Structure formats: structure tokens, C-alpha cells
């Protein structure tokens, strides 16, 4: 039991289960899943579908945070990616042609990669603090996206493109498969190879890693590139969902929610040890919380209050101060009992 509680995923998973239980008790239809036309429907399925963009962004953020960095530009990259894809589709003669959509997707992801390489360059070569380095793109990226769409919200009607976010594959939403595939790919690359542990080493102690011969520059660079690619895909899903490229609204605040998901999932912002499973749980918690807040009849605009409380709670639980305090309490309790037993023979 102790080892279960001590496991780093215990609290996040417990929280997710608690949220699901509360929701199920409060509204019975929450857990119900129906099949129509060979497709599953229900609140839980919606959560799986809607979490796709945040999941992808948070996944990339996890890797970046593991290197002791942070990527504030994810929302801007989403905006650029969506703008690039929709501009290509919009400019083509037949938006419904699969080839056009594939081209648009590939180009959008390549552009995202380019942005990630830029971030990685600032951080790993120029040695600029990650918060600042990615702040540059966070500010300028949306401007670039607006330039691409020429200041308009580009809308398209393209069936293959819409499939990305609203399509179904084997009972479940296609978007769900995208994030599962991304999680599996990142998980395999990080944990089956030594990349994961080397990333952690770089995140925990960059100088020691450098002296040990770890190619930290490449590792950090690739983390930002991966984050940007994942954000690019997230941007495509977002654009597909609203059938439009909205350079201002796409991915707004997503960096904050992604960071929150990573932290809730038990990865420390100080870098180092990271947990992909934790991030997955973190994203699901946020998405479920969002759905619960909506159900409570709270305006979605007011939901940040709840997230603020979650952040405060989580950081206080993770806080070393609290742990030190708890240790001291248990120690003095132990000393007190030892003291008592010392006194017994004489007293």
C-alpha cells in the first residue's frame, strides 16, 4: 500500500478517478456510452476527442520541461500551422481533394518544425533563457500567422481536412487515435532508447552532463523541435475543428494549460525526471474538470478560478516546504515516542 501511495502517479490518478466518480454520481449520463452508426458517443468519448490538441501540446511541453526549459510559443505555433494549412487548402482548386489536404498538412508541420528549430537555436546555441527565447516567438508568431492569413480568418470547407478532428475510425474519434499514436511514439522514443535518461540528466544538471560527454545541445534542440511539431499537429486539429484559421484565438492560453497538465502529472518544472503517463493523466484531469465545470452551469469564462485553485493546491502539495515540514513533524513525533520509551524503565 505504501509503495502505491508513494508512486508518483498515485495522486494524479486518484484525482482523475475522483473527478469521474463525482461526475458520474452527479449526472448519471456522464459515464454512459452509446453506439450509433458504428460510432461511440458520450461525455467520456467527448473528453477523449477534445483533449487531443492539449494532449499533443502537453506532450511536447513535457519533453521541453524535462530539459529544464519551457515553451511559451506553442499557441503561436498552433496558429501558424493552422494558417499555413488553411491558406494552402483555400488557395487550391479543389479543397476536397485528399492530395491537397495531405500537402497542406505536411507543409504546416514542416513550418512548425522550422519554428521549433528557431526556438531550439535560441536556447541551446545562444544560451538564452527558455522563457524569454520562446516569448519572442510567442509574441511574433501570431503576427506571422496573421500575415499568412492576411489578417482574415480563413475558412474552408474540406471534407478530408475536417475528418482530422471530427472523423471516426473503428468506433472512436480519429483525433483520439492521433494523440494515442503521438503518446506511444514519444514514449517509445524516450524510454526504449537512452534519450529519456539523457534528457533527464541534461535537465537536472546541464553542466555535469556536458562534462560527462552528453550531447546536450542536440538533446535540447530536438526537444523544442518535437514540441513545435506536436503543436503544429495540435494546430491542425484545432483548425479542422472550427474549419477555420483564427490567428488570434488558436491555441490561446494553451501554453498555460499544457504547463498545468505537466505539473499536475507530477513532472517538476525544475526539469529532470519526467512522466509521460503523468502528463496524459494531467491532460485528462484538466479536460474532465473543464467538462465538470461546464456541467455545473458555470460559465466557461469563469472556469479559470477553478484552475487557479487546482494550481495552488497542486504546487502546495508538491512543495518541498510542505515535505520538510511533514518530515520534521514525523521526526519529532518519533523522537517524542523514543523519549517516552527511554523514560519508561526509570519512571
Amino acid at each position, binding site marked *: 500500500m505504501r509503495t502505491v501511495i508513494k508512486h508518483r502517479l498515485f495522486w494524479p490518478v486518484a484525482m482523475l478517478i475522483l473527478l469521474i466518480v463525482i461526475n458520474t454520481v452527479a449526472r448519471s449520463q456522464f459515464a454512459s456510452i452509446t453506439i450509433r452508426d458504428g460510432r461511440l458517443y458520450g461525455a467520456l468519448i467527448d473528453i477523449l476527442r477534445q483533449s487531443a490538441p492539449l494532449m499533443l501540446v502537453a506532450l511536447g511541453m513535457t519533453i521541453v520541461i524535462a530539459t529544464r526549459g519551457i515553451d511559451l510559443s506553442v499557441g503561436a505555433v498552433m496558429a501558424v500551422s493552422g494558417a499555413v494549412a488553411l491558406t494552402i487548402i483555400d488557395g487550391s482548386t479543389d479543397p476536397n481533394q485528399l492530395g491537397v489536404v495531405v500537402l497542406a498538412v505536411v507543409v504546416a508541420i514542416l513550418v512548425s518544425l522550422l519554428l521549433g528549430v528557431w526556438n531550439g537555436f535560441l536556447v541551446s546555441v*545562444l544560451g538564452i533563457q527558455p522563457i524569454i527565447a520562446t516569448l519572442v516567438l510567442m509574441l511574433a508568431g501570431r503576427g*506571422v500567422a496573421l500575415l499568412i492569413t492576411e489578417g482574415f480568418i480563413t475558412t474552408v470547407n474540406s471534407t478530408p481536412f475536417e475528418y482530422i478532428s471530427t472523423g471516426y475510425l473503428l468506433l472512436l474519434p480519429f483525433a483520439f487515435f492521433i494523440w494515442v499514436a503521438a503518446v506511444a511514439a514519444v514514449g517509445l522514443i524516450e524510454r526504449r532508447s537512452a534519450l529519456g535518461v539523457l534528457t533527464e540528466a541534461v535537465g537536472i544538471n546541464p553542466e555535469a552532463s556536458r562534462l560527462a560527454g552528453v550531447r546536450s545541445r542536440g538533446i535540447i534542440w530536438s526537444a523544442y523541435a518535437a514540441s513545435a511539431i506536436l503543436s503544429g499537429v495540435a494546430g491542425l486539429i484545432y483548425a479542422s475543428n472550427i474549419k477555420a484559421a483564427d490567428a488570434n484565438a488558436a491555441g490561446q492560453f494553451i501554453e498555460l494549460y499544457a504547463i498545468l497538465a505537466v505539473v499536475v502529472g507530477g513532472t517538476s518544472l525544475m526539469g529532470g525526471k519526467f512522466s509521460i503517463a503523468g502528463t496524459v493523466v494531467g491532460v485528462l484531469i484538466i479536460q474532465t474538470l473543464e467538462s465538470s465545470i461546464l456541467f455545473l452551469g458555470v460559465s466557461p469564462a469563469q472556469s479559470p478560478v477553478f*484552475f487557479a485553485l487546482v494550481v495552488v493546491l497542486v504546487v502546495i502539495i508538491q512543495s518541498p516546504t510542505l515535505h520538510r515540514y511533514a518530515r520534521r513533524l514525523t521526526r519529532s513525533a518519533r523522537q517524542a515516542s523514543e523519549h517516552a520509551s527511554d523514560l519508561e524503565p526509570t519512571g
Partner: protein
Amino acid sequence: MTTVEKAAEVRGQASGPYRVFMSRRASLLPTLTAVAILILLFIGAEIFLRGDFITPRNISALLLDNAYLLILAVGMTFVIMTGGIDLSVGSVMAFTGIWLASLLEAGTSLAIAIPAVMVGGALVGLLIGILVQFFDVQPFIASLAGLFLARGLAYVVSLNSILVENDAVLSLQSTRFQIGDWYITPTGILALVVTLIGTYVMQYTRFGRTTYAIGGNPQASLMGLKVARTTVSVYVISGVCGGLAGLVLTAYSGAGYPRNGIGTELDVIAAVVIGGTVLTGGRGYVLGSMVGVFVYGTIKTIISFMGAEQSWMQIIIGALLLLFIVVQRAIVARSVRRT
């Protein structure tokens, strides 16, 4: 001391004004660069727009339009000086602004409403400060919580904008003290007063110097300085500045609106950095942040004069930010290498 170093000391002492300046005031360089850029912007715009730019009206408007930004930048300078960051400022401004509007709508007197919203801003700052200082939460995350909280509270107060009909508040904006074509509004005066107080506190009080010390040496508590109290205070100051900015913005727009100030924290941080304050803390000036705000405001004005896309604003500010970061990095690296 070693002979090599001694020789270096002697060299340092015996040299001319350039070296004395570099040994005393190298940290002024980024701010001076910002001043130079501001002047270049003015001259460039004047030439480009054929003499239509440097006018009393434009320059007066610069202060008026950016008063809230300046107030936020002063608060942010305190936070960044300690090596922290405060992402909550835009939300706090929105929250205090809409709350003020709602209090006034309900007929609360100004004497109660204004102190109330200041305390509201201060409390958000206090929360952030406590998380940072006593729970070892990174400033980025702690202030992120503050951002969420204040933004949510703004919507809790009202989902829609609330018009302000209080004459006293509106007069903060509409009153113009004029000298020829030059004018200044009470909001502008307020922003300047905040800047002056900020400068005074930073340069002439022990509290201000402690913020520099914390930014320069995270172990400053070993120097017997009141680190905990100072760290919490800078976030409270930033919160109060958020409250003041809420008041100014409400006066400026004649209404409280819960969507105000989304992304403003980034503009503020950009302005502070452009003004020469180093994001790792310990180096910078409140007056530098004022220059940074003016650079920001001038670029905005130029872009609107040229009728260019708003998107260029973001790209130019991003590029400027990058430029300043690289310059600062070079300066910091230089001083680190010398120790």
C-alpha cells in the same frame, strides 16, 4: 591578492572616463540603447511621415494611451529585479477594472470602491508572493495561478462590460491640463507619479536595494537581508500596480470589461526588458522601463500612422525583444566572466 590581479586593479583605477563609466555603470548600457532606439524611432518616423510625427499632440497621447502599461511596468520592474516574473498583471488589471465598475454601478462610493479594488489587487499579489517565498513555487507558476484566479474572478464579477457613469472616474481621463498643444490627464499624472515613487523606492530605500540584492544573489539572506519580506512585497506591489492600472484603464475606456488585458503581461514584460532590465534579475531601472513603454507605444503609433497591419506590431516587438535579450546576455556573460 595576486600580482596579476593587482596589476589589473591598478589599470582599472588609473584609466580614463570610459573605463570608469564601464566599471561603475555598465548596467546602464541596455537602457541607454533603449533611449537611442526611442530617439531613432522618433527621427525615423518624423522623416518618413514628413514632419507629421513629432507633434505635441502625439507625444502627449503617448503618455495618455500607455498610462496603464507604464503603471504595470513599474510593478513588473520590482518583480523582475528580484529574478521573478508576474504573469498575472493583465488579469489583475481586468479584474480590478471590472470590479470597480461593478461597485460603482451598485452605488458604492469612490472612497470605498477604490481602496477595495487596490486591496483586491494586493491580495492576488500576496497569494503569489507567499507561494513563491514560502512554498518554493517558481514565480512563473505561482503568477500563472494568479493569472487564472484574477481572470476567472473578472468573469465572476461580470461576464459583460459594465459602463462607468461616475464623473470622478471619467474625469481622470477627460480632464486635460493644457499648455499650448501639450496636455496631460490625471491618469498620465498618476502614471508618472507611480514611476517617480518606483524610482525613489528602488534607488533610495533599503527595500529597493534589497530587491537588487536578491536578484544578484539568491543567497542574499546570508547577507542578513530581509529576503522573505521583500520577495512577498514585490508581488504585492505588482498587484497594487495592477489595481491602479485597472482604475486607469477603466477611466480610459469608460467601462470595465472582463476581457481587458489578455496578453498584456507579455507587452509589459517586453517593455521592461526593452527598457534594460535583465530578466534574470539584479540589473535595471524603473526609468528604463518607462523608456521601454515609450518605445513600445511609439512603435504602435508609427504602425497605426502607416496604416500597416496590426500583425507587424507583434513581429517588431518580438524582434526588438530578441535584440535586447541578446545584448543583455552579452553584457551579463561579460560580467560573469570577469568574476
